[in-house]
């Protein structure tokens, strides 16, 4: 069993700065948990608390069936992969991987066997007698992952391991790490992984579950799809997803039977079931959130539909398979994402109508920023 459980874990740095505000997190055995959030939100701090590299100033951390608050890093059954690889520069790849094992009094041939096996898994066998400076960044990070694997830890901790690599390598390595996780699990080894990143694409593609942090607090812990479709609050909604969700400040209103909001005097009606959930908010200010793919340009010859807004095209990003249209309404900028329609005139300044799919919208409380339609 190698679950990792944080109970009201808290970190106050010696200078008095409270980096982690009592967070509760339950990482299940064998789970791939991603910690994600903007820079400075205490992802690293949280990971380092789990590793034991930072003291915990409040709460408890459990790994398996032990409270590890007072257990030194080496006895926590963890292995860590660092952003800057942290390979010992004066040792070869092989020595780097063997170094820690020697101090655990592992027999020589056992060390050798484990390194060979890990090297095969990571396809680094030819690199074993090279020194770090004779390798590329991607190769170094593979060695660093290998160094973690040979320890056969209960929990792998990764702190932004791919952020020093170029975009292409990042994509291929993230697939490899994910595969490694699957493979280790299949082999029956405990393969709980906690992975820190500030890149939401990495988070979405790798995590079994994702924990979104902001200012040392957990915003939401859930599967990638749930985070995307059911964000608990405005922060998660705008953090997850690229391009980001459109968020507009507006007021909920009601005529005889329908609840609506107004965007620059154009009326947008809410769906019936949603309207019921927000009944108590009528007349109050709220945030309306709509993902770019739920806003679509309406071609000029379409008959007038409900729930459209008129905006002025600012910029269009052509991806080939889709286009991202930035348009402005009354000084605010919105984003629509759609399949390209080559017949449309998308030159800057063109006035266009956009349809909003209100079935997929989110409404957030103006004060608490909680999602009120969940």
């Amino acid at each position, binding site marked *: 069993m190698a679950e990792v459980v944080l109970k009201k874990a808290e970190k106050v740095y010696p200078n008095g700065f409270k980096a982690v505000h009592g967070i509760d997190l339950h990482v299940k055995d064998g789970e791939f948990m991603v910690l994600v959030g903007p820079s400075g939100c205490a992802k690293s701090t949280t990971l380092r608390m789990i*590793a034991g590299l930072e003291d915990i100033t409040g709460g408890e951390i459990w790994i398996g069936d032990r409270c590890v608050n007072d257990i030194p890093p*080496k006895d926590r059954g963890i292995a860590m992969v660092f*952003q800057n690889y942290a390979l*010992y520069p*004066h040792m070869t790849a092989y020595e780097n991987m063997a*170094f820690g094992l020697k*101090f*655990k009094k592992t027999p020589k041939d056992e060390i050798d066997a484990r390194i060979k096996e890990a090297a095969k898994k990571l396809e680094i066998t030819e690199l074993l007698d090279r020194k770090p400076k004779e390798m590329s960044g991607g190769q170094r990070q593979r060695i660093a992952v290998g160094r973690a694997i040979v320890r056969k830890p209960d929990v792998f901790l990764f702190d932004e391991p791919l952020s020093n690599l170029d975009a292409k390598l990042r994509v291929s390595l993230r697939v490899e790490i994910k595969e490694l996780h699957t493979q280790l699990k299949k082999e029956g080894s405990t393969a709980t992984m906690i992975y820190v990143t500030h890149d939401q694409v990495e988070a979405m593609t790798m995590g079994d579950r994702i924990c979104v942090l902001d200012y040392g607090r957990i915003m939401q812990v859930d599967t990638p799809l749930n985070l995307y479709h059911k964000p608990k609050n405005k922060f998660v909604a705008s953090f997850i997803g690229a391009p980001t969700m459109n968020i507009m400040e507006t007021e909920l209103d009601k005529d005889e039977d329908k609840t609506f909001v107004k965007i620059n005097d154009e009326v947008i009606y809410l769906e019936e079931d949603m309207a019921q959930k927000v009944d108590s908010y009528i007349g109050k200010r709220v945030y309306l959130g709509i993902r770019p793919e739920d806003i679509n340009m309406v071609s000029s010859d379409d008959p007038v539909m409900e729930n459209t807004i008129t905006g002025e095209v600012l910029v269009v990003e052509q991806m080939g398979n889709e286009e991202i249209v930035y348009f402005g309404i009354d000084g605010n900028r919105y984003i629509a994402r759609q399949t390209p329609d080559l017949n449309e005139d998308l030159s800057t300044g063109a006035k266009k109508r956009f349809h909003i799919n209100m079935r997929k919208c989110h409404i957030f409380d103006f004060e608490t920023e909680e999602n009120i339609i969940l």
Partner: protein
Amino acid sequence: MIKSKDIKKNLTGYAFIMPQVILFLIFMVYPIIEGIRLSLYKINYKTETFVGLKNYRDLFNDPVFVKSTLNTIIFVVFIVGLTVAFGLFVASAVFDKDARYVSFIRGSYYIPVMVSMVVMSMVWNFLLNPANGLIPYLTQQAGFSSVNFLGNKAIVKPVIIFITFAINVGQAIILYIAAMIGIPNDLFEAAEVEGVSKFHIIRKILIPLVKPTTIYITIINIIAVLKIFVVIQLLTGGGPNNASSTLMYYLYNNAFKYNRLGVASAVGVIMFAITLLLSVPQLRAMFKED
């Protein structure tokens, strides 16, 4: 066209380094050549007689020269060894501590380095003065018989070694701390997670990684101690019975006391050769850099 322009450009460059080159030629190269020339002459005030290698032969037959050479070697070995060992020890103990604490340590070890060697020697002279010095007084209070630290053949060398080491070590500590602070912290954390003990982290990671600094400290200290003079001149005058005489001190005596300029030059040439030889690894490392 282009060529003459290039030459012009280069000329400007040479013009800029010219002052430095001239000074270097006058104050470094010329004295070295002149020293080599003088070492082949017997010099008597105004007359110079060519004697070939006789000065060198005489040197090796002079027991004081042999003793001075041996003393110098002993000083170099012990002072450099102690400086490197203690420098490593202190630096590795403090480099990762609170920054304020580190600067305090740095400051306190650096003060003797900043104060001139003459002043430090005089301070030690006061401290060790057998008549009213603090240290002899304390040893006496502690129940030992009165010790003449600088007048005793058996202990004068250790005392000189200790004093020079104490004055010098600050620089080594500073250099080591700087080198160690430059090592990325995650290396130590990786080792900590892997269960490597503090002792082995220092031995297997820290010390190998500051090897360039160790080489540098070793060489500059060897060169400095080879030329050790001020401490000897001010504390012991080479005594007792030449027990603390060094090459430099011997050179000084020959040049300015016994008026044997040729012999003194020969000593100078020998020291220059040794220094040059010892600098080879350092120079090589420096040139390899680019």
